[in-house]
């Protein structure tokens, strides 16, 4: 760590960094230890990428997400996650109808009309995403071109971008990846001679963002910027001196797009649990040349708190087995946290998609006996799960209650996406999310 290390390339082997920054030390990427992966190609039981809009539309407070799709898309959005608590959400669906498909109406004209009506109704919107869906992909409606055309018409009031959240291409959290990746080309350019900056990519709860910002400030790392920002006009600049920590594990395309803008991705475990958070922060600290003593001084109190809060749940969780159905790509880092910090025993860890580069530090920390599965064949996976009868099964909303009826204890996976779980102060909360269903079983006498 103390020896200066050469900056190396990532992912696709091509470096787009046009200028080296002497003060920054980037550790070389580690590779992924060889291990068997179970690839499954049966029925998937996962959300499509549209569901990412549920948090993205609250995170970016002046953005609107217009899905171009079918009634099914609109129905998914209002059914899937209780978003109807918001009186008027900043998303909607342009529902294609028979006359659109039959060619009676020109789809592009129709879309232009919908966008015009929408922006008239919501004049406060500054950033509009046209979001592709299964049907729009199948009929090959070109939303990129539509976005460009509309961007001209509504310039400069509203920026218009597009991405696909379709279920034939993306699952759940990949929607955020696609959205952020679509944002990256329009990020302001950081000049080549700018000082090195840290970018944290991936939507975080505001309170977590604030905590990380405070820690980085105390460490002396800065400026630190977050992608996405809370307002369209505050999106972080990017350039060859941008060093990027991924706060979420599902940002494959975003990482690639950032690299294309010249940024460097710092490979790190994800900030889940005391150890995960420490390793994640240390990656940045090392890169920015923060000495160990400073790092220790700044992080020790919060780390101690995290360890203390986590340890309180160890008693109830140690030795308990856990089984992950694929859902958000958070499964592997979560399994690592549960295994290393709580002594739990992951059996199968399913992930909808596995990026071996991004996930290498996490995978390497998992015991060989942990079965990693990618993709899904839900009926077969249920068979395996019932055979193993894990102490806790982490799964989606469609499966949880039926498994509970069978006497299994489940953890609702979407909750892990909607709850602030990253960072030191949330490490105890994260452990508690797994302890809670077991705690509940203990309490209930009926």
């Amino acid at each position, binding site marked *: 760590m103390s020896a200066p290390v050469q900056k190396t390339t990532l992912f696709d082997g091509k470096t787009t960094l046009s200028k080296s920054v002497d003060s920054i030390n980037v550790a070389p990427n580690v590779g992924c230890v060889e291990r068997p992966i179970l690839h499954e190609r049966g*029925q*998937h*039981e*996962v*959300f*499509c*990428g*549209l*569901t990412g809009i549920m948090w993205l539309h609250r995170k970016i407070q002046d953005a609107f997400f217009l899905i171009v799709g*079918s*009634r*099914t898309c*609109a*129905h*998914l959005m*209002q*059914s*899937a996650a209780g978003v*109807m608590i918001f*009186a*008027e*959400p900043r998303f*909607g*669906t*342009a*529902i*294609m*109808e028979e006359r*659109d*498909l039959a060619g009676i*109406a020109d*789809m592009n004209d*129709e*879309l232009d*009309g*919908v966008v015009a*009506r*929408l922006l008239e*109704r*919501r*004049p*406060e919107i500054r950033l509009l995403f046209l979001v592709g869906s*299964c*049907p729009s*992909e*199948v*009929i090959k409606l070109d939303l990129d071109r539509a976005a460009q055309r509309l961007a001209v018409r509504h310039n400069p009031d509203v920026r218009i971008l597009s991405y696909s959240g*379709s*279920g*034939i*291409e993306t699952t759940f959290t990949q929607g955020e990846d696609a959205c952020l990746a679509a944002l990256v080309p329009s990020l302001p350019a950081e000049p080549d001679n700018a000082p090195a900056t840290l970018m944290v990519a991936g939507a975080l709860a505001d309170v977590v963002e604030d905590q990380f910002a405070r820690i980085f400030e105390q460490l002396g790392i800065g400026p630190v910027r977050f992608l996405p920002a809370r307002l369209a006009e505050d999106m972080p600049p990017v350039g060859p001196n941008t060093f990027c920590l991924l706060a979420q594990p599902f940002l494959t395309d975003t990482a690639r797009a950032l690299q294309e803008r010249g940024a460097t991705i710092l490979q790190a475990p994800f900030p889940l649990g005391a150890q995960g958070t420490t390793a994640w922060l240390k990656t940045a600290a090392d890169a920015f040349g923060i000495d160990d003593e400073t790092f220790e001084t700044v992080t020790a109190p919060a780390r101690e708190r995290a360890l203390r809060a986590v340890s309180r749940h160890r008693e109830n969780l140690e030795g308990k087995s856990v089984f992950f159905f694929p859902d958000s790509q958070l499964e592997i880092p979560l399994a690592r946290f549960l295994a290393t910090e709580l002594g739990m025993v992951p059996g199968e860890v399913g992930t909808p998609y596995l990026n071996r580069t991004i996930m290498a530090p996490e995978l390497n920390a998992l015991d060989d006996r942990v079965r990693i599965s990618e993709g899904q064949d839900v*009926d077969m996976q249920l068979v395996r799960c019932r055979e193993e009868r894990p102490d806790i099964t982490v799964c*989606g*909303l*469609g*499966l*949880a*209650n*039926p498994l509970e*009826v069978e006497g299994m204890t489940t953890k609702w996976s979407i909750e892990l996406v909607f709850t602030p779980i990253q960072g030191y102060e949330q490490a105890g909360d994260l452990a508690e999310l797994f302890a809670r269903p077991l705690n509940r079983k203990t309490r209930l006498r009926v």
Partner: protein
Amino acid sequence: MQLTVWTYEGPPHVGAMRIATGMTDLHYVLHAPQGDTYADLLFTMIERRKKRPPVTYTTFQARDLGGDTSELFMESARGAYAHHKPAAMIVGASCTGELIQDDPGGLAKTLGLPVPVIPVELPSYSKKENWGASETLYQLVRSIAPSGPDKSADSDGPSCNIIGPTALGFRHRDDVREIVGLIETMGIHVNVVAPLDASVHDLLLLKQADFNICLYPEIGDVTCQWMKRTFKQPYVKTVPIGVQATREFLHEIAALAGIDESQCEAFCLDNESRLPWYSRSIDSTYLTAKRVYLFGDASHVIAMARVAQTEMGFEVVGMGTYSREFARDMREAAAQYGLEALITDDYLEVEEQVQALQPELVLGTQMERHIAKRLGLPCAVISAPVHVQDYPARYSPQMGFEGANVLFDTLVHPLTMGLEEHLLQMFRDDFEFNDEAGPSHLGHSAKRATTSAQTPAPAEAKADAAPTDGAPSWAQDAEKELRKIPFFVRGKAKRNTEKFAAANGVMTITTETLYEAKSHFSR
């Protein structure tokens, strides 16, 4: 292309799922991408069902589209049969599946499965959930029921089928319990309830009944009509929501079952609802002529309008439905109140009408709950689409006599109670009971949404005296006087005053105008 924030109905294949999931041994193979599996949670989470819906999705992906998605469908159908061993299967496509034109019905035929396989073609880009449920039930019954045994001559006593209840229905679970209870107590045998909790075999027995009861017309009417034509079974169309409708419903049934009129009347008296007395009790006098707006599916709105007007003593000032298939019935019902029905599936149109009418109570769906919330109006939910709270643990029918009890409580709950109204009027300026306070029995410190004016959404309620576009403007003194009117009638007072001012060419509303309008509109 239609811009939608919320949708009143899901796609038609969700309607088919409601039929399949309601039944005990039917399986649905759906040609659909992975994202469409979200629909499972409607049943396992919102309705808290103990089993996954009996649906196999092919979950084709982008990479499959170049290849053979037909084969994927065949494989899935074969696998589904092997894994689940249903008594019958239905096959079809979701919106995306429809676009790739693989013809699931035709493909399924070639599989040679040992159970009936019924294709259900549900045009996703023109039809919706209730139509999908209705069509699926119709195709099922048409395919299966004719093969059943005819009614044997020596069967004892009258019998009927109850048609329409499904999984994920709005109060179907409890409505069925209430109605079956009433009918059986009258001495009529309930032959089959379908599709809810029915087996495929039960469908074979449909012919055995003397008559049918169509409990949910949106779902059961087409099937009941077909059975009337085919099996010569008359059917009861009255929806037993409210005290009068329940009595009429029971009398119709008695007539079909050959039960004596007076015996039926005695039965009705024995099982009387509390609604009539609660509605006549003097603490309900304040309900009189409160202006009510209704929106929801056609059957519920039509039935509930009658309850509102003639059983609760409200004044129905607007009503509408998203059930286009029942537009004519809705228009006829509305005409009885001198109204024109709103037929739309656009949430924003409903919002506009509610805002224009400023009713004192909104009876609607979860969507109208939102509208009412934004406009600061009391609201009760009386129709699908459903929410987890529409599946309470307790017995909560809308139909029958206990249903009428439930309705009384439901319709009164959101309102400010009578005496409280007076105290509010008397002491509006009291700092402990100011304008921000909602009905005191609601929630912890219910406060009205005046601060929501920060929300930049354009349809923002203008219950206070901000002038509406093109409307006369308010002088300061009149605005102050308007604010002395309690919140639960202020919207109406403002609307009336502006209407009066406009009709009389008054450009600036003064306190005088306010009172002129009050006198003009006094009822």
